[in-house]
């Protein structure tokens, strides 16, 4: 082991030799950026899922103005879900939180078809959130469960509209 004094006294030309003789490994090579933990990966997927739901609500509301009174309040709740999920992303530093819609399905050709399409998307979202519970921290599990409950109520609202 070299002392700090020996290192400071070494010239640039002799430092490599001293390091080699003293069995020092030298400075560590910069490692790759930290990988995203599975929990964060799930959180980022949840953000994207909400973006996709908001996109289809927005398109449906624009295409069928008669549905806006039903769909807009539900879309607002998805926007709240998105905000909360994004606020929970704390790692890795500097990595952008998703802001891009990844699924842009064609809208069904009728109002009833669109409602059924959105209902199916909500049901799938509930199933996905439920599947994420076991790998989440207690706080995130509560958030996923609460959002799943909100979205299951959306299914009820859509059922009533389809039935009515």
């Amino acid at each position, binding site marked *: 082991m070299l002392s700090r004094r020996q290192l400071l006294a070494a010239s640039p030309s002799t430092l490599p030799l001293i390091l080699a003789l003293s069995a020092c490994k030298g400075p560590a090579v910069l490692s790759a950026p930290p990988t995203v933990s599975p929990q964060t990966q799930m959180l980022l997927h949840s953000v994207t899922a909400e973006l996709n739901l908001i996109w289809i609500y927005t398109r449906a509301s624009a295409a069928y103005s008669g549905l806006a009174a039903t769909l807009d309040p539900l879309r607002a709740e998805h926007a709240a879900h998105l905000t909360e999920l994004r606020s929970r992303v704390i790692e890795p530093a500097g990595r952008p939180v998703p802001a891009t819609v990844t699924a842009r399905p064609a809208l069904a050709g009728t109002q009833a078809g669109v409602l059924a399409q959105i209902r199916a998307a909500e049901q799938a979202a509930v199933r996905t959130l439920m599947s994420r519970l*076991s790998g989440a921290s207690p*706080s995130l599990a509560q958030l996923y469960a609460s959002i799943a409950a909100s979205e299951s*109520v959306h299914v009820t609202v859509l059922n009533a509209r389809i039935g009515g």
Partner: protein
Amino acid sequence: MGTPSATASAGPGASPGAGAGRIAALQGALAAEHAAVYGYGVAGAMLAGRQQAAARAGWIAHQRARDTLETMLTALGATPVAASAAYRLPFAVTGGASAARLVAALEHGVTRAYLGVVAVNDASLRSFGAQAVQAAAGQAYAWSGNTEAFPGLPGTQS
């Protein structure tokens, strides 16, 4: 709603105090169910027709949930919390409208309590709690007509 094994294995990172955490969360849910059983009885007396039938169905559902929780707690070696002889209502229930508001408030309480079960580090209990949260949130909507962005999570921006 499925009933998880009371001796379900803890998930990764479970601490030695995990059993106590399970019991505390289940006791919280049971206390909320006791309150719901009492409150549905009060509300049902003020309702009529289809609303009364719905309240009766809810009353029975909460009794079943109470019994399930008591069984789970007993299997964990705990003594289930008992119901209080009476509960202070959050507001006066004087007719159908306030009775419906009471039922919605009870369901909100049940929703919050089962979110406590979701926080337990046990996969089967989390799933059980989350299903109960969905059921209670659905009932709260049925009685209030209002949807929520974050059922059971007070203070979350909605």
